[in-house]
């Protein structure tokens, strides 16, 4: 169980990550805003509590592996990695620029600490499953995590991966779904309904947990519970607010794939700074 101080520390990291996301997106002039802001709390929890990792030694053999299937939200990963010490936070401003290690969609070979190359939706869970399968063959102790979007559950390949992991009882694999209900063309339940998502995963032999994706304590507890499930892989359906932290972006699917301009960024950053400490684990 996290102490109150540990929760507060993670929440403050999440706020720093949000501010960095806005700064890097406005510098880049293109990119995705809603998804990265919505996943800031989870990425803060991953990089500042959950993952076994060493920013000074990104290839450490025993590290936990984090696959990002929905590569378009990579600004949140870059920001979290920078704040965790993988590279200087200033480098975040090179996002999407020529010669940058921070490609528009993540490339494993360009930036140490990334586990794969991703962006085209639907194939990340299969990759993470293959990785987890190989690691289990050799009795490796590290865990494999895979973040997915809800929208990429439209893709057949995602369900091929779901079936494969369930069939093979990959208990060293934890999937984390950013259930923010939006995709490029609109609300997920209007574009191509996904519900009942829990029942679908259960039918494919997964252990399913649902959490408030902005409640750090709830998320960390779920990750801990997943480690205790022996017969199945676990999926954590994290209910998030797209754009969380910036009122104008929250719940608005039109912010899925565009960055703020300079004026907006100024306003959003001011808003985020007033939020320091207000997105909290409210159930305590």
């Amino acid at each position, binding site marked *: 169980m996290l102490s109150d101080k540990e929760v507060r520390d993670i929440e403050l990291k999440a706020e720093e990550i949000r501010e960095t996301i806005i700064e890097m997106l406005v510098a880049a002039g293109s990119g995705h805003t809603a998804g990265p802001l919505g996943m800031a709390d989870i990425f803060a929890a991953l990089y500042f509590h959950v993952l076994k990792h060493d920013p000074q030694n990104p290839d450490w053999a025993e590290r936990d592996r984090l696959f990002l299937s929905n590569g378009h939200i990579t600004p949140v990963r870059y920001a979290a990695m920078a704040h965790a010490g993988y590279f200087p936070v200033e480098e975040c401003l090179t996002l999407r620029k020529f010669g940058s290690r921070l490609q528009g969609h993540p490339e494993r070979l360009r930036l140490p600490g990334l586990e794969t190359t991703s962006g085209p939706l*639907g*194939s990340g869970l299969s990759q993470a499953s293959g*990785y987890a399968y190989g690691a289990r063959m050799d009795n490796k102790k590290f865990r494999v995590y895979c973040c997915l979007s809800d929208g990429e559950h439209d893709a057949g390949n995602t369900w091929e991966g779901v079936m494969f992991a369930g069939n093979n009882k990959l208990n060293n694999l934890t999937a984390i779904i950013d259930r923010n209900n939006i995709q490029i063309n609109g609300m997920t339940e209007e574009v191509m309904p996904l519900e009942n998502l829990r029942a679908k995963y259960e039918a494919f032999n997964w252990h399913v947990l649902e959490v408030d994706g902005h409640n750090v304590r709830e998320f960390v507890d779920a990750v801990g519970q997943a480690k205790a499930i022996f017969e199945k892989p676990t999926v954590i359906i994290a209910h998030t607010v797209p754009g969380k932290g910036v009122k104008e972006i929250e719940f608005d699917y039109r912010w899925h794939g565009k960055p703020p301009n300079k004026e907006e960024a100024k306003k959003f950053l001011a808003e985020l700074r007033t939020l320091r400490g207000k997105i909290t684990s409210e159930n305590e």
Partner: protein
Amino acid sequence: MIYPNAKLVENLFDAKEQAATRDGFGTALLELGETNKDVVVVCADLAESTRVLAFKEKYPERYIEVGVAEQNLAAVASGLANYGKIPFIASYATFSPGRNNEQIRTTISLNQVPVKIAGMHAGVSVGPDGATHQALEDLALMRVQPNMVVISPCDAEEARKATLAAAQSGTPVYLRFGREKTPIMTTAETPFAIGKSSLLWLGEHPQVVIFATGPLVYNALCAAKELENDIAVSVINVHTVKPLDTKAIVAAAEDAGAVVTVEEHQIAGGLGSAIAECLAQECPVPIEFIGVHDQFGQSGTPAELIEHYGMGVSHIALAIKKVCSRKKK
């Protein structure tokens, strides 16, 4: 004459011994099971016809089934290779690299993980299954992906060697195999190295050089022999379509001054295109292309289809004469 250093079988033109190139793949996998514990096989519900069944039975703990799911086949293998295994993925070429092309592009080629893609049932010689199962564009699909090595073995023995070499290579590799039994031309002593073409038939002061790939190399040899008292022809087996052995190819084209390419594939995008791209820059000479000309296949016997689509010995002989007549006097 047969080039002595090629160490081909005796009585080459009797073609007594035949085997499918996919059988050479299966044989090599059993050898790899013994010698390389990192090798795993991933299959999409086609264990028998892709010839991975024997590996599955002997090494069940290293055999991974994904069902009829070729996108998963590629992406799961990407994860396995990323972890440190050497996965061979087996399906029909129309599905892999056909159906799963994007997964191969992003998660294998761009990601630079050493997955070995074995595409079976290449060419119209698949026969009765018809156009849906006859891959005629797989070389093109794989050749345009950076980091991907593309190999199209000429017979079962070369298929065995290519599979063993692919396991060692550390790169993504596409291996192309046929369904039908075809003549065995090479022996265990025939040299094989990825990226190195091999001269099989040496014409004295050749007027034409044939660059052939896959089992049709045999038809190319038959055509060269048929014309041996008429037109001197050399035959080079280009088993590695990428990276192309440009030095040897340019030298042979310069020497002969005319080229015929032979492949059981669309003439767009395959070996012929690769040769033309190379020679247009380095040594422009007349070229004739033997292959399928912008058509799909159909049901029939392999022999009927090879003839119908213009890839028989007589077609190659005709192309040799034609390209010879196009040479500048």
